[in-house]
């Protein structure tokens, strides 16, 4: 798993050719092994942006380059060997076990109709170990807690051996402990990661760079402390944001208040 850089060149998206754009052209670059946080209010275009990167919705204009190659130029399988995604989709009640779900990560690497072999099993084992899922590998996915299920989905993405990992709101619906675990995980994976986050303080803590979106427009891209400034956050999220220093840990923290 060698992380690859991501370059987005003027990518934009509209539902159809003549309809207004939901995401206006945006360009940015993520260096190999870096974490990019995508933030913005609801409906800002975060999911739309991510979908173009994990090759679900084709950009209306522009290119998405992973490791220098346009992921939209080749077939979906080729892109799937490079880009994995942890999404908010929840699998239905189909009785797949944890191990079977993680093994799905090997799908784009399979030859033709072959079934997973010993090498695949080894990769799956590693992914399970890394996510500390080995003890529940034969449990039914439907009987797991939200945090465990999220870890299964990350293990599945790791089994895909991607060069770039996209995560859509990975901390959603998780309790505090599991949120913190996911965040420390993001830091430790050593992959290039694009992650959308609702919590700006988490974004500031975990990301090397932040991209801020509002109404389909890019409102800032750069280091977290620059993009997540009081003025920028206040304007984009229509709140009054204060950068405060927490007295106990002596770290900066954003607090939010409704404007008068």
């Amino acid at each position, binding site marked *: 798993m060698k992380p690859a850089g991501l370059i987005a060149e003027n990518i934009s998206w509209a539902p159809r050719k003549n309809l207004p754009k939901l995401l206006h052209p945006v360009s940015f670059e993520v260096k190999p092994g870096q974490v990019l946080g995508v933030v913005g209010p609801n409906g800002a275009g975060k999911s739309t942006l991510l979908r173009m990167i994990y090759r679900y919705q084709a950009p209306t204009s522009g290119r998405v380059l992973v490791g220098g190659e346009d992921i939209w130029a080749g077939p*979906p399988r080729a892109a799937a060997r490079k880009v994995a995604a942890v999404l908010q989709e929840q699998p239905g009640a189909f*009785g797949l076990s944890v191990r079977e779900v993680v093994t799905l990560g090997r*799908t784009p690497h399979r030859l033709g109709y072959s079934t997973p072999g010993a090498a695949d099993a080894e990769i799956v084992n590693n992914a399970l170990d890394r996510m500390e899922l080995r003890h529940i590998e*034969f449990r039914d996915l439907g009987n797991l807690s939200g945090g465990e299920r999220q870890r299964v989905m990350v293990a599945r993405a790791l089994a895909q051996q991607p060069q770039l990992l996209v995560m859509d709101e990975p901390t959603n619906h998780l309790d505090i402990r599991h949120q913190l675990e996911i965040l420390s995980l993001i830091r430790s994976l050593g992959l290039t990661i694009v992650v959308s986050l609702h919590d700006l303080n988490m974004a500031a803590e975990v990301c090397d760079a932040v991209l801020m979106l509002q109404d389909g427009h890019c409102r800032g891209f750069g280091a977290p402390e620059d993009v997540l400034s009081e003025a920028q956050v206040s304007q984009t999220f229509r709140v009054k944001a204060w950068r405060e220093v927490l007295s106990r840990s002596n770290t900066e923290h954003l607090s939010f208040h409704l404007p008068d």
Partner: protein
Amino acid sequence: MTETAVDISRNRKFRLTMFCGVILLLFSVSVAISVGAVSVPLHVVWGVLINKIAPDTIEQTWSVGRQSIVCEIRFPRALLASFVGAGLAIVGASLQAVTRNPLADPHLLGISSGGAFGAILALLHTGMFLGLLTVPLFAFLGALGATLLVLAVSQFASATSADRLILAGVAVSFIVMSLANILIFLGDPRATHTVVFWMLGGLGLAQWSQLLYPLTILLLCGGWLWLNAGNLNAMTIGDETATTLGIPVARFRLMIFVTGALITGVMVAFSGIIGFVGLMVPHIVRMLVGGDYLRVLPASALFGAIYLLWSDIIARTIMAPEDMPIGIVTGLIGGAFFVWLLRRRDT
């Protein structure tokens, strides 16, 4: 390596389930041949069958009449029941994966109704201008038409979510059924009683000469579905995740629907509308062998065959010597199962 040990035990459980299933299937076929208006003892059933395969192995102690009942009527009927049950069960299992809805079933999605529409059109209006193949071909085209209609309606109504896709299927089912009723209404009244057969389902038309069609379709389409078991697994997670695993989701779903229409259409052509097999069987199978489609598909085929054999046995004995249409039996059992499932999903 305890993990591998558990893995092996899961495999062993699957093999054990399949082994018991095959034994149960052989037993079910024997009983299906044995019971009926004229009861044929089990040892005679086996004697006749063994002598068919290896002549003169067992001394013939039974009448020629019994022999021809076993060979000409009941054996092909039992085989047809097995093929139809297996076919409908794997279609249900596959549709459930690509619609991500455990309630998907060729009957509920209107595919069976489309098949019946095609069969009725051929029987009452166009005549057998293509010979014996006319009804199966029309049934397939009807099933395919209904399938595409369901997909079109779900696009049109933006009802691509799993639950609403089922509603689109129910709507199409009603429309196609009404169209079929118009065909019956406009058709020759003397011929309509043969049409009732397709509406209610029955295996009474089984003949050796025709068994090859459902068997061929079952083996070809079933084999293709089995090769795609990995992709079917991925589809149960979600469209977007399946896409990120390299699966061309829209095309794959369409191919599964067309394959499902092919199997359902041909099965409906020979047996009429038999509902809920595709809904019930995969559910029970998942409880036995887990959710991996590599195991779900063959087990569904096996237990679908067993289920339909017993439904047919019930249909033939409950009002003996009358044959009750088998669709009534599967409808009653399946409807009750559906209610149980709804309750279970809520809790």
